[in-house]
């Protein structure tokens, strides 16, 4: 496999990243160029016939419940990431791989049960 093949195989990814950058930056700059600079009143900056009416600032303090959910998300994200290499080699690994993964998941499920029993997931 030559070097050109490597670059060619990642070409769609490179193009996608480039298009994403260009699109995002061009929107910001076009809004700066084409948009009016004068008369920026609150009414004119408001949402117009679309979206929710803004009720207050977005710089509010978040609740700690969000942190608990995000923390649980991380742990189970890691679990899923460890399942990818297991899944692609599932047939070759056989029973040992299955038992190993079941043990892995059982330990993490114990953590989930703990969190559930402690009520960290209740949204009161």
């Amino acid at each position, binding site marked *: 496999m030559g*070097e*050109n093949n*490597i*670059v060619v195989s*990642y070409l769609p*990814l*490179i193009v996608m990243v480039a298009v994403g950058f260009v699109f995002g930056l061009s929107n910001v700059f076009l809004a700066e160029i084409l948009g009016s600079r004068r008369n920026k009143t609150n009414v004119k900056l408001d949402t117009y016939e679309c979206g929710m009416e803004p009720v207050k600032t977005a*710089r*509010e*303090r*978040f*609740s*700690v419940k*969000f*942190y*608990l959910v*995000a*923390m*649980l*998300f*991380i*742990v189970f*994200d*890691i*679990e899923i*990431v*460890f399942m*990818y*290499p*297991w*899944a*692609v*080699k599932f047939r*070759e*690994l056989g029973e*040992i*791989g299955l038992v*190993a993964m079941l*043990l*892995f*998941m059982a*330990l*993490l499920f*114990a*953590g*989930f049960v*703990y*969190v559930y029993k*402690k009520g*960290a997931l209740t949204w009161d």
Partner: protein
Amino acid sequence: MSVTVLLFGILAVVAVASGISTVMSRNPVASAMSLVLHFFTLAGIYLTLQAQFIAAVQVLVYAGAIMVLVVFMIMLLNVGREEQMRENPGYRTIIGTALGVMLAFQVGKTAFTDVAGRHVLPPGSAVTGTTEALGETLFKMYLFPFEAVSLLLLVAVVGAVILAKRKI
């Protein structure tokens, strides 16, 4: 100079710039966003190394999960306001920078001595970056560390809940 070297160069420059921006930003949210960019460039560098699986996991775990938690934490503590940004450049900055320069010198000297290039395999001898190869190694040679990771994550869950929840 080949295309891969060019790509590596661009990614390396962006990685260093976003790393510096992470450390230097006054605003923690700007810091976090620079770190997200840094993780993406590192994923690109892993791709130039042909470590596809690690590149994908880098985006999934670091940019996708850990940074979400960090940004939540910044929002939770709301430390982004200007009046709390009073990091005075004092003696600690000088000492830290001096230590950094020393460390850079040491690490650079070690990196350039003789290890590199001695055991390098000839190109075309091994395919190690694919998910299959990693699954093979992980479940045949590193089975016990794999199970230990689940214990580690269990302890992390319990510890984080105990620390973060107001009423247990």
